[in-house]
């Protein structure tokens, strides 16, 4: 029955993509409406439309325009972009490591990116070069962890699932410990840095949206370019080579694309776990494993998922805002454990 579902859904992939985009649009509008000052859907849509076409906004109350365009829109867009980036990079790392449990958080890449971003904030590059230094620092930290995990899990043949997860946990924990150490040493900045690490999106600006958008476009371009070849890579590196795939180039593009996206997401949104594991896994169950459709689906659904989590984070204990990372961890941990137990039973 599942196979028939995959088969049917594959023939309607364009409609499904359209449905996801509509859902994402609805999620954005709801996200823009919810907050300490509730805004009606009609006024949100109307202001957004006027803003998008460059028309005058004088007819709307200036406070409403300010809340929507200056505060909520960059925040909601950044949440959506971060969800898309984490979910897509999760799908990519799972393909790279041939491991359904790989996710930027589980394999320590997000922790490495967090450490890199933290160093960039504390050591001074952000003061010297501006906000762009954060994703650059995060990228350096993340790519360092990818190589460290690959080296630690290396064995005869291809790395085993448990080796990757264990190496990721060990290296990620080390990166987290160093991050905590730096945070303690940061003095008055500590509270702000802790909120960043827990994935708070309460204070972001348009510059962050621009940088993450560029990172997402670069990462998506790399991953879509190798999406078909990633399918063959799932068989094994050797079989992919025999099917005419340039495995080294494909691996390099996956690592680069996925790590750029993770770094951008973490640099401006802190550590948000489990998005990269829940979304691709659920999509694989429903739509099959073909990366050519999985990657764009993961981007849309990941964005929608994190938007929904952000709305929850803002409304559960309003007016207090719960860090987004806590909400995703509460949803993600049980799902991860369920997947792990099911996998162990099937083996």
């Amino acid at each position, binding site marked *: 029955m599942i*196979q028939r579902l995959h088969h049917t859904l594959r023939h309607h992939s364009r409609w499904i993509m359209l449905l996801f985009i509509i859902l994402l649009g609805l999620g954005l509008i709801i996200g823009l409406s919810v907050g300490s000052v509730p805004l009606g859907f009609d006024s949100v849509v109307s202001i957004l439309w006027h803003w998008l076409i460059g028309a005058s906004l004088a007819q709307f109350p200036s406070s409403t325009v300010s809340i929507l365009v200056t505060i909520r829109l960059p925040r909601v867009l950044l949440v959506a972009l971060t969800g898309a980036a984490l979910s897509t990079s999760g799908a990519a790392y799972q393909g790279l490591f*041939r491991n359904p449990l790989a996710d930027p958080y589980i394999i320590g890449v997000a922790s490495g990116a967090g450490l890199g971003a933290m160093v960039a904030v504390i050591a001074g590059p952000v003061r010297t070069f501006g906000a762009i230094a954060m994703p650059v620092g995060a990228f350096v930290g993340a790519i360092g962890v990818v190589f460290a995990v690959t080296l630690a899990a290396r064995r005869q043949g291809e790395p085993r699932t448990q080796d990757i997860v264990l190496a990721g946990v060990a290296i990620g924990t080390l990166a987290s410990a160093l991050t905590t150490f730096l945070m303690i040493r940061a003095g008055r900045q500590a509270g702000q840095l802790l909120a960043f690490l827990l994935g708070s999106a309460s204070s972001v600006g348009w510059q962050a949206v621009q940088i993450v958008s560029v990172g997402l476009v670069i990462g998506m371009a790399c991953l879509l*370019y190798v999406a078909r070849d990633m*399918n063959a890579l799932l068989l094994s590196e050797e079989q992919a080579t*025999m*099917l005419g795939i*340039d*495995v080294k180039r494909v691996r390099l593009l996956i690592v680069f694309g996925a790590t750029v996206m993770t770094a951008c997401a973490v640099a401006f949104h802190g550590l948000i776990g489990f998005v990269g594991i829940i979304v691709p896994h659920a999509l694989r169950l429903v739509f099959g494993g*073909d990366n050519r459709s999985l990657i764009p689906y993961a981007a849309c659904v990941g964005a929608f998922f994190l938007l929904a989590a952000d709305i929850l984070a803002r409304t559960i204990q309003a007016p207090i805002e719960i860090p987004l990372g806590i909400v995703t961890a509460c949803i993600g941990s049980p799902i991860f454990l369920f997947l792990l137990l099911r996998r162990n039973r099937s083996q």
Partner: protein
Amino acid sequence: MTYLLDVQDITITFGKKHVVSDLSLQAKAGAFIAVIGPNGAGKSSLLRAIAGVIPCSSGTITIEGVSVADMPAPQRANRIAVVPQQTYMPFGFSVRDVVGMARYAFRPWYAAQDENDEAIIDAALQECEITQFADLDASHLSGGEQQRVAVARAIAQQTKVLILDEPTAHLDLHHQAAILRIAHTLTKRGVLVIAAMHDLNLAAASAQHIVLLNNGRVAAQGSPSVVLQQSLIEEVYRTSLVCIPRSDAPFPHFVLAHQSLFSTQAVHATDSSLSSYTPREKEKLE
């Protein structure tokens, strides 16, 4: 005489060990070559070197006069298809998807399969008797069915050389015969089939040319009647065999002798062939 495959004096080295030494082999289009020998003799290493997956430390391997080592991966995939010893099917891919991966090398990254590809995939599925599984998740099939999917994928590559690494390992008798029948049909179309095999009788029945390897060296090669000599086989495999003469073929039928099943001496003798290797090297060889 022009050969499709020309292997000249190759040596394959893992660390300091020569896994294959000074091996030469020539084959024309349409031939069926069986590579036999005990575990760790170098069969899979030889096949992987011919497929261009592992490098030779010396010697050359050419297909249609072009060195395999110098071929880019897509060009190699247009000439050589491989059915590996162990097949793994990823979750979420139908049998048709997996067989369709054979056509990746023939299309740019953005292009979908066309009608020609679909027809080739359909024919490969039909040839391997797996059309009824086409829309099932390949990871849910049994080991034998997955093996047939891997063979179908190799057929769909439409190459001039087909390498089969123990193609009948997971198959029941019916499907062993079916796979070898398919291999024979391919040879009639001019495909050179090279298969590593453990079953001497199947190798004898299928191949026109047998290469017997022992500790990485060619112990004998030639027609089945030349290679399949009882004393030679017993010496290489370090076990006792019973040979049943056949009226329909110039080579005997081999059966394990009763004492080799229960004599610890025979087992120890076989194990001693690997005794010079470290455990890590043994794992690599096996």
